[in-house]
């Protein structure tokens, strides 16, 4: 009898739930009368890149709140649909499909290159503009999709900067490379390898390791035996931090060079004031006049310091919305035409997109840790 009751009540809940969702659906199916403009936001909010991904989306949220405070865009309020791809490529495709189905007019995201690349096909097929604040793998804009944009640089710009720094400034001839087997980490590592070899250097070790591995001692023993003079890590900070410590614990005081994926406060928290650590990242925005109000607002809203990609998230949202505003339309073709032909003012300065959707101005520079802070190297490129 109790079981019957349970089943009955479960059934009632299910029916009620279905009724509610169908109400929701019927509301959704009238896009013509929509009083808001829907913008999709996607990125890693959970998983090991959850922190850096969330801080990127938070940057975009601030921009959208500012636009809404001014009255929205095209006379309508902006409504956001925020989804989590967990940093997983398969999940990203599901997220993309959900965003397409929910009727968003444009998407800000994703964060991980491995997510952005498979998701971009869905957006492109549905004629939705996508702008990624943080995916640096070249393949994203090389697929020939007209509606794909990114506001950060590309790994084939970043990799050569790091490789040239290792070869020309640090005077290294033999380096070891380890990457995290993702589209981003491996892609960048391969660019670094190619450039470093073309400069006349030798790569004595090139290996990949699983994304959730945190014991690198076997790899480091191989590095030790190979006689490498420098070590390059292509991957994220959640592994880069312990890797750097274990490198030093193994008695290897060779330079540790890494990428924008390690450019995060928690990387510094892990490694501390370690000398001989170099990271490639975009230019320093902390002293730019436009950055100060944003950093203050971020701190006031989220009660923490902004992440490495927060500014890029903010700039991406602003660029996208002002393109929609200038096009006076949410139609992908019109927005794209504006984006590819006009300059945009952002915190990081003037931004122009080329025909592929990449920014023309990407100034990668080398950073190092000094006094517990990341600082641009004075002698860097």
């Amino acid at each position, binding site marked *: 009898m109790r079981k019957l009751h349970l089943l009955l009540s479960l059934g009632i809940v299910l029916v009620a739930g279905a009724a509610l969702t169908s109400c929701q659906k019927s509301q959704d199916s009238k896009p013509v009368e929509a009083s808001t403009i829907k913008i999709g936001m996607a990125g890693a909010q*959970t*998983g*090991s890149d*959850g*922190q850096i991904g*969330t801080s990127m989306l938070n940057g975009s949220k601030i921009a959208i709140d500012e636009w809404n405070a001014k009255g929205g865009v095209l006379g309508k309020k902006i409504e956001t649909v925020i989804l989590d791809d967990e940093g997983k490529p398969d999940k990203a495709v599901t997220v993309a499909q959900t965003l397409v189905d929910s009727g968003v007019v444009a998407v800000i995201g994703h964060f991980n290159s491995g997510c952005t690349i498979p998701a971009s096909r869905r957006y492109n097929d549905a004629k939705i503009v996508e702008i990624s604040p943080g995916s640096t793998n070249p393949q994203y804009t090389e697929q020939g999709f007209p509606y794909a944009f990114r506001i950060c640089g590309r790994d084939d710009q970043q990799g050569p900067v790091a490789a040239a720094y290792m070869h020309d400034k640090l005077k290294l001839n033999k380096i070891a490379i*380890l990457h995290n*087997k993702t589209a981003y980490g491996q892609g960048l590592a391969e660019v670094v390898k190619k450039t470093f070899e073309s400069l006349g250097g030798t790569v004595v070790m*090139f*290996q*990949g*390791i*699983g994304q*959730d*591995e*945190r*014991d690198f*001692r*076997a*790899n480091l*023993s*191989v590095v*030790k*035996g190979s*006689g490498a003079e420098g070590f390059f890590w292509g991957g994220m*900070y*959640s592994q880069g*931090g*312990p890797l750097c*410590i*274990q490198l030093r*614990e193994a*008695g290897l005081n060779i330079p540790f060079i890494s990428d924008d994926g390690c450019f995060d406060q*928690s990387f510094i*928290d*892990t490694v*501390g004031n370690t000398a001989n650590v170099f990271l490639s990242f975009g230019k320093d925005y902390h002293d730019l006049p436009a950055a100060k109000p944003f950093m203050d607002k971020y701190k006031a809203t989220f009660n923490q310091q902004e992440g490495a990609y927060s500014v890029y998230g903010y700039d991406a949202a602003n660029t996208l919305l002002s393109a929609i505003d200038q096009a006076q339309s949410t139609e992908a073709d019109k927005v794209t035409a504006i984006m590819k032909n006009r300059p945009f003012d952002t915190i990081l300065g003037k931004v122009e997109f080329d025909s592929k959707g990449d920014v023309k101005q990407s100034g990668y520079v080398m950073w190092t840790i000094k006094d517990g802070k990341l600082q641009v190297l004075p002698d860097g490129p």
Partner: protein
Amino acid sequence: MNSSSTLTEILIDGVSRGAVYALVALGYTMVYGVLGMINFAHGEVFMIGMFACIYAIGVFSTTWGDHIFLNLGLGIIVAMIFSAAYGYANERIAYRRLRKAHVLAPLTSAIGISTFLQYFIFLTVSKDTVNFPRYYSDFLTNHRIHFGGVEVTYLQIAILSLALIIMGGLFYLINCTRLGIALRATAQDQLMASLVGIPVDKIIAFTFILGSALAAIAGVMVSMYTNVLVFDAGYRVGLKAFTAAILGGIGNVPGAVLGALILGLTEALTTLQFGSEWNDVTTFGLLMLVLLLRPRGLLGERVADKV
């Protein structure tokens, strides 16, 4: 550096990595031995031990200052209590009612608990990596013993000896004590065991509490070894430890350690020979090979004995 000393270093790396897996694998194998159930939430209990320890250390060092051994020792005890409580709660909430259900029901429940705990920690404690305070681990990671041109850190020795001590302790407990007899009786037939006066519920709860407390010790050692703690730390180590337990014959205590050491060495040698991107290929290839030849694992009991 010549290649023979690289090989020696790789072997040491492999053994210490195996010892890390062994510490966790012992918990898997013990619960399986008694209940015949794979406790997928074991990796998460291990991760909770990590977090409990550093938070306890933080509280102690602000209360009465930085006494390395006192704080670390108490931190480990707090971690054990915390993990044991979680382990007991898991058993009470998620498994006990499913004990007589189909074998897949508690398994699914365990996977659910595992995901729940992972994201509970992610949302309430830390979304990011947390650093193990190096002040407390430096004495173990920076002191080394030298022999024959290679170095072994105190921590590596500590992890391996702990794994062996716990293995020995569990083996003694299960095979040579009255409690062990009760454990084995419960494993063989819960109804019969209860008829001869063995408090089956308490015995099973004890298994979970002991396994979880051991997981906490493993958690503290591993968080020192990898320098960082993160909410999904239990997943990878848990998966590898589970593989090790299967390889050695799940349910068998020395088998778990043997399987873990073999797994660790395989990974290290693969890194040397083919590169670490092949680790999963070789380890799971090895697992398949062993299971084809010995379906119950290396030291696993024959099926007839089990039933």
